[in-house]
C-alpha cells in the first residue's frame, strides 16, 4: 500500500506521473522535429522517440500499480485505483500499437511530417487524463486535449480532400458534442455544488436526483454518446473513419472509444450510482439502437473500412450493454470487452492499412480475394480478427461477450441479453464473407497486396495482437479474475455474485 496525498503538489505529480511522462515525450518529439523534419528517415526517428517515450510512462504506471497507490484521505482531481491503472494500460497499448502501425503506413502514403507522432502522444495524454479523472473539469479538459489532437490527425493527409473532409466533419460534430457535455457538467455542478466525482456521489447518496441534476446527466449522456458514436449520435463515424488515415481511424476506434467508455463508467458508477434508475433506461435505449442499427447497416457496406466503422458502432452498443448493470460485474465486463475490442480492432486496421492500393478507401471484399494463397499468414490473421469481432468461441472476443452476458443476466435484464445475442448472430452476415473471400475466392494471378510489403513493425504488432487474442480466448481464467478485481476497486458495494465469471 502506498498512500499518496493528492492535496499537495508533489502528491499530484506522483499520481499523474504516467500522464506527465507522455506529455514530456510529446515535447521531446517536437524538439527532435525542430532539427530533423525533412526526410522519411527523420519521420521514422520521431516515431522511434515517441515509442521509446512510452516506456518510462509504462514503467511509472507499473510502479504505481504494483505499489498499490491509493489516495490519502479524499480522492481529489485524479483517481488512484486499479480501474484507472487498467485504463491507462489499455490506452498505452492502443497508442503503442498505433505508432508501430504508422511507420509503414506513413512511408507507403509518402507522408513526411514527424509532428504526427507528437500529436499522437498529446492525444494519448488527453485520453489518460480523461479516463483517470476524478473531477469533471479534468475529464472535460482531458477530452479536449484528446479531441483537438485527433481532429488534426484525421486531416493529416494534407494532399487528400477526403482527409480534409473527415477532419472538418469530425471537428464540427466533436465541438458540438463538447458543448452538450459542458452544459451537462455545468448543471451537475449546479445540482450538487461539487465537481469531484466522489463528492457528487456523496451529495446524491441515497437521495433523489434533483431536476437540475437530471437535466445535466441527460446532456452529459448526449455529449458522450456523440464521442463514442452511439446511435442516434453516430452519423459522423463512417465518414470520418473512411476519410482519415487508416492508423488514425484505428486509433479513433480503439483509443478514443476506450477513453470515452472508461470515463463514462467512472461518471455513472462513482458520481451517480444512486440515480441508476434514471440513467439505466437511457443507456439501454442507446445500447439497443446502436446494436441494431450498427449491425444492420454494416451488412450493406461494400468498403471494408466503412464496414469496420459500422461494426464499431455496433460494438459501442455492446459496451453500453456491458455498463448497463451498474454493478461490479458491469465494470469488469467493460474492462474485459474493451481489452478484447482494442486488441482486435488494432490488428484489423493494421491489416486494412496494408491491403490498400493507392488509398485504402477502395478496399472491398474483392481486394481480399485469394489472400490465403499468396499470404497465408495474413489471411489467418484477418480470419482471427473477424472471428474475434464476431465473438466466436476460442477467441478473446467471445470471452468479452460472455462477460457482458453474465453481467446483464446477473442484473436480470434478459431482453437486453437476447438482443445482444441476436445482433451478434446478424453480424456474422458481414464478418464471415470476408473470411470466405480470403479463402474460397480466386483472384487469378493478381497479388492482393499489389507488390506492397508489410513492414516489420506492422507484422510484429499484428502477430502479437493475434497471439494474445488466441491465448486469452482459450485461457481466459486469469484475465477474468483480474478484471473483476479491477472493477472491485471502483465499485466496492454489491455485485459479489460472480455469475460463473472466472470459475
Amino acid at each position, binding site marked *: 500500500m502506498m498512500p499518496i496525498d493528492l492535496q499537495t503538489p508533489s502528491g499530484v505529480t506522483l499520481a499523474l506521473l504516467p500522464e506527465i511522462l507522455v506529455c514530456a515525450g510529446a515535447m521531446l518529439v517536437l524538439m527532435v522535429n525542430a532539427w530533423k523534419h525533412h526526410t522519411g528517415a527523420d519521420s521514422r526517428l520521431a516515431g522511434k522517440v515517441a515509442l521509446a517515450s512510452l516506456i518510462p510512462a509504462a514503467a511509472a504506471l507499473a510502479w504505481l500499480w504494483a505499489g498499490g497507490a491509493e489516495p490519502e484521505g479524499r480522492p*481529489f482531481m*485524479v483517481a488512484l485505483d486499479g480501474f484507472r491503472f487498467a485504463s491507462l494500460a489499455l490506452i498505452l497499448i492502443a497508442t503503442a500499437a498505433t505508432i508501430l502501425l504508422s511507420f509503414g503506413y506513413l512511408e507507403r502514403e509518402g507522408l513526411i511530417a514527424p509532428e504526427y507522432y507528437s500529436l499522437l502522444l498529446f492525444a494519448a495524454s488527453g485520453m489518460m487524463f480523461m479516463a483517470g479523472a476524478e473531477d469533471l473539469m479534468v475529464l472535460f*479538459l482531458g477530452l479536449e486535449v484528446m479531441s483537438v*489532437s485527433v481532429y488534426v490527425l484525421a486531416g493529416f493527409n494534407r494532399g487528400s480532400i477526403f482527409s480534409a473532409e473527415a477532419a472538418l466533419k469530425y471537428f464540427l460534430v466533436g465541438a458540438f458534442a463538447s458543448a452538450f457535455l459542458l452544459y451537462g457538467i455545468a448543471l451537475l455542478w449546479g445540482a450538487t*455544488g461539487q465537481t469531484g466525482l466522489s463528492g457528487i456521489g456523496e451529495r446524491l447518496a441515497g437521495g433523489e436526483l434533483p431536476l437540475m441534476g437530471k437535466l445535466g446527466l441527460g446532456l452529459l449522456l448526449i455529449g458522450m454518446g456523440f464521442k463514442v458514436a452511439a446511435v442516434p449520435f453516430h452519423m459522423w463515424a463512417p465518414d470520418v473513419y473512411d476519410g482519415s488515415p487508416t492508423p488514425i481511424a484505428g486509433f479513433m476506434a480503439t483509443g478514443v472509444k476506450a477513453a470515452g467508455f472508461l470515463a463514462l463508467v467512472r461518471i455513472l458508477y462513482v458520481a451517480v450510482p444512486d440515480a441508476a434508475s434514471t440513467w439505466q433506461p437511457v443507456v439501454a435505449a442507446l445500447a439497443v439502437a446502436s446494436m441494431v442499427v450498427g449491425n444492420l447497416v454494416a451488412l450493406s457496406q461494400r468498403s471494408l473500412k466503412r464496414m469496420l466503422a459500422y461494426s464499431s458502432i455496433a460494438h459501442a452498443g455492446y459496451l453500453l450493454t456491458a455498463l448497463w448493470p451498474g454493478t461490479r460485474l458491469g465494470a469488469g465486463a467493460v474492462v474485459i470487452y474493451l481489452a478484447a475490442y482494442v486488441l482486435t480492432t488494432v490488428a484489423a486496421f493494421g491489416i486494412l492499412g496494408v491491403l490498400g492500393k493507392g488509398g485504402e478507401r477502395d478496399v472491398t471484399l474483392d481486394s481480399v480475394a485469394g489472400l490465403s494463397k499468396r499470404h497465408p499468414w495474413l489471411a489467418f490473421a484477418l480470419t482471427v480478427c473477424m472471428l474475434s469481432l464476431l465473438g466466436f468461441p476460442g477467441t478473446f472476443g467471445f470471452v468479452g461477450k460472455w462477460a457482458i452476458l453474465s453481467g446483464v443476466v446477473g442484473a436480470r435484464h434478459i431482453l437486453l441479453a437476447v438482443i445482444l445475442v441476436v445482433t451478434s448472430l446478424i453480424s456474422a452476415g458481414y464478418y464471415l464473407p470476408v473470411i470466405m473471400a480470403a479463402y474460397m475466392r480466386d483472384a487469378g494471378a493478381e497479388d492482393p497486396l499489389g507488390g506492397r510489403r508489410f513492414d516489420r513493425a506492422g507484422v510484429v504488432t499484428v502477430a502479437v495482437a493475434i497471439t494474445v487474442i488466441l491465448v486469452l480466448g482459450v485461457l481466459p481464467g486469469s484475465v477474468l479474475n483480474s478484471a473483476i478485481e479491477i472493477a472491485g476497486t471502483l465499485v466496492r458495494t454489491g455485485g459479489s455474485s460472480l455469475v460463473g465469471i472466472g470459475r
Partner: protein
Amino acid sequence: MSGQTVFYILAGAAILSALLCIIQKNPIASVLWLISTMFALAGIYVLLQAQFIAAIQVLVYAGAIMVLFLFVIMLLNLGRDTGDLRGMPVRLAAVLVAGGLLGELVLLARVTPGSMALLRGTAVGAGTPMASFPAGQAGAAAPGAQGVVGAIAEPLFRTYLVPFEITSILLLAAVVGAVVLAKRKL
C-alpha cells in the same frame, strides 16, 4: 433604473442578437451579431457580480476569438451573401429538436437561490479547506479582502491547479495542430 430592468434589457439584446446571428445570410453580419451577443452577456456578468469574467469576455472572446473568425472570413473572401440555410425538412427537424430541448431546459427558470439552500453552507466531507472550497461562500462575499482578481486566482491556483496545468497542454497541442494543418509547406 433598477438592476432587474437592466438585466432584462441586456437579456433581450443577447437573445435578439443571437437569433439575428443564426439567420443572417452574410457571414460577416453573423460575426458582428455574435459579438453583440457577447457584449450583452458581458453586461449580464457585471450584474451577476462577475466583473473579472466580464472583462475577459470582452477582451478574449469578443476581442480575440471573434476577430480571428472575422479575419479568416475576410482572408478567404467569403464576405458575400451565401444563403446557406438548409431546406424545409431540416428546418422542421430543427424546430422539433429546439422545442424538445427548450421544453426541458425551461424548467431551470424555476430554480431559485432558496431551492439550492441545502447546498449552501454545508461544507462537504472532512477534507482540507482546499477540497471543500466551493460550497462555502457565495460569490460576492470573497472579493472584498483580495480584490476581484485575487478571489478568482485563489481557487484557480489551488483547487483547480491540475485542470489549469492541463490547459497548458491543450494550448500547446492546439498550436502544433494549427501549424501542421495551415502551413503551406512543412
